[in-house]
């Protein structure tokens, strides 16, 4: 399977979003890959509101069976959510469960005017009625469940997409 270049997709995604950015648009990245991507978009789009970060560990629906993952990161929403147009940013859209958890968490900070989802890649396999308004690349055939597609960041900051097969 051909894995597209993350840097190219990142620029394409920024151009998709650009026409819809308003002065009060805020970005929130989902840890960890989504946050790296959100940092890039934040700079590329010249967003004025400070960047938010969400770790969905405490909102996951598989907490009861899987518990907390190793080291949850801090959720930080440094802008006023009430009335703001928010773009949630994640690297890969899959089942939609992470997005659901992030939405729930975001709403605990206030009532946004609207929420859109921006992702680098849609890998198919949705289990919830969730779609991305902005998406740089869609995998037409989807991926088998034992394959993990995620964003990696090199020490120099370069973004790449990595496909690994689990056990």
């Amino acid at each position: 399977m051909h894995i597209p270049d993350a840097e190219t997709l990142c620029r394409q995604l920024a151009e998709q979003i650009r026409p819809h950015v308003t002065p009060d648009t805020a970005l929130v990245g989902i840890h960890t890959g989504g946050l790296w991507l959100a940092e890039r978009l934040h700079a590329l789009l010249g967003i004025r509101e400070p960047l938010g970060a969400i770790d969905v560990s405490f909102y996951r629906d598989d907490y009861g069976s899987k518990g907390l993952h190793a080291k949850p990161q801090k959720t930080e929403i440094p802008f006023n959510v009430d009335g703001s147009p928010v773009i949630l940013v994640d690297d890969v859209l899959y089942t939609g469960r992470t997005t659901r958890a992030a939405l729930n968490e975001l709403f605990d900070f206030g009532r946004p005017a609207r929420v859109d989802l921006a992702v680098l890649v849609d890998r198919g396999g949705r289990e919830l009625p969730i779609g991305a308004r902005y998406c740089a690349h869609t995998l037409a055939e989807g991926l088998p469940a034992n394959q993990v597609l995620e964003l990696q960041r090199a020490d120099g900051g370069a973004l790449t997409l990595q496909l690994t097969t689990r056990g």
Partner: protein
Amino acid sequence: MRNPQLNKHGELQHLLTLDGLPRDILTTILDTAAPFTEVAEREVKKLPLLRGKSVFNLFFENSTRTRTTFEIAAKRLSADVVNLNINTSSAAKGESLLDTVDNLCAMQADMFVVRHAASGAPMLIAQHLQNTGRDHIHVVNAGDGRHAHPTQGLLDMYTIRHFKQDFTKLTVAIVGDVLHSRVARSQIAALTTLGVPEVRVIGPKTLLPTAVEKLGVRVFHDMREGLKGVDVVMMLRLQNERMNGALLPTPQEYYKIWGLTAEKLALAKPDAIVMHPGPMNRGVEIDSAVADGAQAVILPQVTFGIAVRMAVMSMLGSN
């Protein structure tokens, strides 16, 4: 024998004592607590982790701060909390304790937070649950007799790490009534596990347990000598209510020799922090000027205590 606090996968099943708790679990609790500190700043101060779970606060001994912080922690995790203050006579302990537990289990309890004047009571409950195959119910020790107060020890470690970062470079002094203090035992266990190279205990001979050196601490009977160059001063409360017989002269005299004053604190490192598990006896073990001074981190301890208890309960709830 398996550590009674861990399940067969080596995960935390109950939190009973910090003594013998593996370092990686201790560190995981502290790491997990960090993101919980931010929840208090949200519009909705709640996380859904224990939604639909019932937490029973079983307090056989009075405590306002500990019970309240456990209650807040459980509620911020969306649990349903039932507070039971049970005054018990010493004769009614053993069997009636387990009867109480069985009754609450019949009400679908998911977690017990237990404070008891008898050392080992939470362990007894945990063993009872295990013997009766109720592994899905968890026990948190909120202080038992002179034995242990693990969440206090954990929040103290969180506080030290917050202000001093690296445990392996510190000299820490524990001052006062170590003999009656479950807090001190939990602190010593955690500090040792986390690799603090020098733990000192400072106090009069009558208030230090015999052979306290065996816990791996340096013993000082001179407060000024013991405080020299320390990074952290952990004061203990003088536990009048636990004393039978005359172990001490008067509180005034105790203050003169063992009270933490600005003058004695000056012997510690200039950036040393002062901790106290509360409730404080001002003018007995600590001078007001120190308790309210710039080096005191006593109120941050209370705030961190909520996050640490959230971490413990959320880890137990999923194991």
